[in-house]
């Protein structure tokens, strides 16, 4: 019988070699998803937009973080702020979409706010007592920038963004990210839990089966992992960077000549020229440095079994039509890979509903990043699960054993 903590089965870490993967109810439980949204998602840093969107005073964009409506704006003083995008009057949006404004005005009743969130004018409030507009301001959230991106957390106690991204930041220099241009991106809505999609990113074990094109671009013998505090890194080396070349599927349908046609960006060291650094940032962002540019993708949990994934591309300015076509081939290849991931994640999400599957095992030498993710997630969730347990079952109960009728309490395949 699995032990339950809060709405889901417990996960105890005995090392990647001896631990079962996250139980299936972590991927299907509506209660857990609501708990994550009320607690965990508020406590972490989210990549919400691009610096170029708020480059000048008055520029702004809106976003949603853990069900919180947020507007990010550059003030007249040049300061970047993240504020509640909920009007203090009757909860209308003070800003919509993105653009440039001198002030924000709620379209519901016309209350107007300065770019820094202070209430400028509340029309028609004469006769309302104990109402002091000068004291009212939209609640502020923590905001920071990293490279070309803007990040927000709703938690005042979260570590700084610099600390959060400390292991990734050194890569910015060689890739000259400040010289790359935002080229656009693509969004997918995937019918799976957000953890299913993140799990999939955490290992290269699936590449030969799910990504036959990528498998021919990365060498299994040059695939390494490194774990950090809030990030982990996978490195995949191209098999023959200067020989026959990588086979890149997509627009070319696989060509031996790709790397000859499209040399790596200048300024990269040997490993950067000949491989891909895949960084995961706990819990919902990936930062991928490639010889051809920067690809990030952000994950937005929409529902217990619905996730939004957005690819964002930063590439060097193409100096010729041919180079732009080659960049298109790279984009096409990246989107093909994600489409493959999309599909397998939806299949595996259906599997998580199975009555005879509870959890699996880690491939100890290939899924340590996955284990790292589960370890970080469960340690962050534990106090919230305990609080949920106390609230729903009473503090005396603690962690209680519940049967789910499947009898899969033990780690399958483990020595007992």
């Amino acid at each position, binding site marked *: 019988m699995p032990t339950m903590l809060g709405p889901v089965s417990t996960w105890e870490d005995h090392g990647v070699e001896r631990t079962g993967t996250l139980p299936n109810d972590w991927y299907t439980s509506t209660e857990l998803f609501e708990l994550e949204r009320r607690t965990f998602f508020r406590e972490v840093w989210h990549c919400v937009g691009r610096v170029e969107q708020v480059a000048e005073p008055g520029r702004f964009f809106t976003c949603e973080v853990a069900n919180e409506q947020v507007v990010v704006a550059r003030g007249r003083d040049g300061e970047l702020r993240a504020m509640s995008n909920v009007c203090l009057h009757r909860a209308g949006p003070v800003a919509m979409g993105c653009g440039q404004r001198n002030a924000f005005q709620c379209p519901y009743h016309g209350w107007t706010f300065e770019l820094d969130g202070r209430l400028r004018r509340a029309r028609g409030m004469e006769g309302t007592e104990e109402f002091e507009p000068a004291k009212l301001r939209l609640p502020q959230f923590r905001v920071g920038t990293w490279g070309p991106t803007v990040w927000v957390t709703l938690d005042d106690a979260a570590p700084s963004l610099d600390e959060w991204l400390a292991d990734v930041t050194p890569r910015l220099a060689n890739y000259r990210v400040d010289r790359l241009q935002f080229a656009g*991106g*693509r*969004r997918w809505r995937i019918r799976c839990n957000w953890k299913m999609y993140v799990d999939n990113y955490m290992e290269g074990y699936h590449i030969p089966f799910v990504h*036959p094109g990528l498998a021919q671009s990365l060498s299994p013998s040059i695939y390494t992992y490194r774990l950090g505090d809030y990030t982990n890194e996978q490195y995949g080396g191209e098999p023959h960077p200067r020989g026959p070349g990588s086979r890149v599927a997509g*627009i070319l*349908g696989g060509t031996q*000549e790709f790397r000859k046609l499209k040399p790596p960006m200048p300024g990269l060291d040997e490993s950067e020229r000949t491989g891909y650094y895949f960084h995961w940032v706990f819990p919902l962002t990936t930062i991928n440095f490639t010889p051809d540019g920067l690809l990030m993708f952000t994950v937005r949990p929409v529902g217990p079994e619905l996730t939004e994934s957005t690819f964002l591309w930063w590439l060097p300015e193409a100096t010729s039509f041919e180079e732009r*076509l080659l960049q298109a081939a790279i984009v096409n290849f990246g*989107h093909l890979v994600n489409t493959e991931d999309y*599909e397998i994640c939806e299949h595996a999400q259906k599997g998580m509903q199975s009555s005879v599957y509870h959890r699996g095992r880690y491939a100890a030498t290939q899924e340590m990043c996955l284990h790292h993710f589960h370890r970080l997630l469960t340690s962050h969730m534990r106090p919230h699960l305990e609080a949920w347990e106390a609230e729903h079952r009473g503090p005396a109960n603690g962690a209680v054993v519940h049967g789910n009728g499947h009898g899969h309490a033990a780690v399958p395949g483990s020595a007992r």
Partner: protein
Amino acid sequence: MTTAHADAAVLEGDLVAFFDRFLTSADGAAAAAAAAALDAPAVLELRCTDPDVVLHVDVGARTVARGPAEAPGAVAEIAARDLDDLLLERLGPVEISRLLEEGRAHLEGPPPALAALLILAGRLQPHYPATLRERGRDDVLAAPGPEIGVIWEAEGPPPSLVGQRRPWQRARPSRATD
């Protein structure tokens, strides 16, 4: 039907002039020399839609002709308006990829032929705006392109890919079943 290409005969005339201009230029000569090294026939069949025009270009022989090719090395299918946006450099890499991802542009042929087509496209492209200028097609040149650098989302789910062999993958030796 787009306003810039309302008439298939006019589009065909533009495209024939474009390929003629390229093939008779130094770029065309260089492409013909490179084509001699290809294993596949250096014949591109271009199928334009909206309005419909089919041409084939023999890069080696430096000729362009109306209608489909007998043995094309590569086939490219694309709407006339998208071809304009592509060859008039109104698209970034994400938008070019999107043409393929949404099936608005389609390429067929063995990888070496498609790689050669890509290199050919680099030499070919400058001749398109030049041809349009020479033919007074200011309407095509002035037509606005799409917004670029945006994040797009497909309407439906993507095609099924997992477990399916790709055209460029080597076939596995079949296993005896009896």
